[in-house]
């Protein structure tokens, strides 16, 4: 009898204990919330205001990593510049690379822009392909699936709840995408330039061609020579939209806009980067509206 009560009590406390999930970026966090709902505590490590390549490694992040049961990273090298020392300093064996509580989403994504050759002479190239897949709403179901499987594995006591949440989110997202794709089919913008290759997944999805970047090489500040070439190219190709993110300097884009008559579209690169992009839906809607407006 005592044993039964003990198991019951233990079972109950286990069932009610939430799992702590840390994600490196906010869009991943928003997807985790959809699936985990009330059973997970989600902590987003990197601020969506700033450059995802250079998140400030605040020591407070160590405390957040220390108590995580699951760490979900974007991968593809995006966290290379800030996460490894934090992960070493947090002393949490559950979330080390290779442990059960570590999930690299990029391993489930068909990466694009994989460079044929890699050298820093070409700037800070993403050696394993473009890691900014999060800007494409069609990646959300793929991401949700791996997250769902991982969370279910870590916390089987709430498996039913996760499955229900996952299924309803998939249905919800399918409907959202149908509507979203319809809107994108009538998008007039077909040619753009961007600051960094942040939006390639989105642009490829909707057959919008990116003709070049404001940064001459990845991670290198704009030069006047490169900017002049870009302006000339934009005039020749009749490109009227410049995609600007929230964290790079804005002077280059407005200078180029002045010279070419193009419009600067400021886009969120992650959920919450811009006002009014705080949910998954509004995040992708803002990208679409800004590009197609």
């Amino acid at each position: 009898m005592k044993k039964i009560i003990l198991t019951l009590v233990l079972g109950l406390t286990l069932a009610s204990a939430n799992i702590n999930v840390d994600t490196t970026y906010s869009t991943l966090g928003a997807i985790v919330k959809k699936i985990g709902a009330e059973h997970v505590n989600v902590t987003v490590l990197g601020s969506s205001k700033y450059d995802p390549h250079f998140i400030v490694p605040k020591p407070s992040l160590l405390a957040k990593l220390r108590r995580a049961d699951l760490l979900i990273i974007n991968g593809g090298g995006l966290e290379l510049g800030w996460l490894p020392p934090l992960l070493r300093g947090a002393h949490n064996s559950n979330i080390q690379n290779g442990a059960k509580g570590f999930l690299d989403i990029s391993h489930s994504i068909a990466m694009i822009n994989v460079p044929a050759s890699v050298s820093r002479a070409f700037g800070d190239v993403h050696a394993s392909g473009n890691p900014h897949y999060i800007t494409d709403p069609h990646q959300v179901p793929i991401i949700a699936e791996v997250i769902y499987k991982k969370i279910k594995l870590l916390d089987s006591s709430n498996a039913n709840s996760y499955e229900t949440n996952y299924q309803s989110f998939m249905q919800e997202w399918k409907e959202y995408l149908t509507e979203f794709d319809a809107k994108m089919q009538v998008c007039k913008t077909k040619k753009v330039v961007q600051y960094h290759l942040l939006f390639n997944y989105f642009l490829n999805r909707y057959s919008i061609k990116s003709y070049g970047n404001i940064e001459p090489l990845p991670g290198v500040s704009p030069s006047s020579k490169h900017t002049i070439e870009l302006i000339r190219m934009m005039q020749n190709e009749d490109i009227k939209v410049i995609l600007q993110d929230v964290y790079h300097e804005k002077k280059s884009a407005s200078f180029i806009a002045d010279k070419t008559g193009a419009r600067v579209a400021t886009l969120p690169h992650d959920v919450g980067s811009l006002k009014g992009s705080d949910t998954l839906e509004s995040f992708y809607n803002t990208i679409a509206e800004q590009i197609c407006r």
Partner: protein
Amino acid sequence: MKKIIPLSMLCALSLMADATLDSIQKELETQKQKTATLESQMQALSRANTKQSASFSQNAYLPDIAFILDMSAVARDVNNTTYSNYAIPGFIDAPDTPELIFNPNRGFNLNYAELALHSSVDPYFDAFLVLHLQSNVFEIEEAYVITTSLPMGLRIKAGKFRSDFGRLNKKHHHSWHFDSQALIHEALFGPDALKDPGVQLQWVAPTDTYLMLGAEAMQGTNEASFGASESNNLYIGYLKSSIDVSEDISLLGGMSIIHGENFVNNTLNPTDLYGIDFTLREQLGAYSSLLWQNEFIQREKNLGTRVDKQAGFYSELIYTYNNNYATGLRYDAITQNDTDLSAYSGVNTDNLDRFTAMLEYKPFEMSRLRLSYTYDRSKIISGERKNINEVMLSLNISAGAHSAHDF
């Protein structure tokens, strides 16, 4: 994808007037074709990128390798020979001045080449090796393993490593904000800093606020403050904590203590050090920040017949304007020097301090040019107090594996 396109076509079409139907249908057809070509191109590309591996190749297991070069051009109003015998009264006495590692000469210096390797050993250990190379010096600066799978927030480091005492000691020269070592660190630990063979145990508390406790046992070979070498005799403990005042303002503080033994006049006597450090950092924008870093260290060196009490601090303010430019100021001072200064009779040994200003330009994140001016009032040159002016242009590059950024 295939299902979605016709569906979305339907949706879009139903909204349109019949008159425009044909043109839209055409547009959609071309869009579909474009998408198809793009997709097949993508697939072909990703196939081309799947490299075939040689059957017994182990290249995928190569460690991360970085090499760092540091060089400078220096103008200084003291000639090289006299400068190499400088004294900091009470701490470094001429002619026992340790060999200078960084920027010893007027004119050109190749300070060092550093080779840093890192690799996972197995699921339980990560290994690090840092080789410090100078024209005729080969030194294992650090060689250690850390555990990755201990429970309860514990981690052990073993090997030769830089102590985590205070704030600056652990950091390598290339990640300092100034080209010269902080004065109190140079005075107490010498240019080699506090590094020794030993073990370290650190614990991170499972709390909302970052709290870390650490303990180290080291050999104690550092001559400047310790130097008893018959057995391991250096014990270090520290506590570090950090809070975020707001999303963009963080404070980091630490308290450290060292107990070791010195071997002056062939007798063993205790040396104790106490350190406090405080850092404030405000993020002003994606690439812009303000950093204020301070460290104070006191030493009590028992010499049998007397106990010397000496202390000093540095305070540095760094303003990073964007990813290309940064500027900073540092003030160093010895604040307490209760020791036998009779060897310096007739020489003013009060108010030993130093000012440094720097301007940094980084064309890219892996290379850095730094122009600095130093007004040094901490040294005795050829038996005279001499205030030294120094202008330096240094170049530091770090190639290969990317080392993550410091806080």
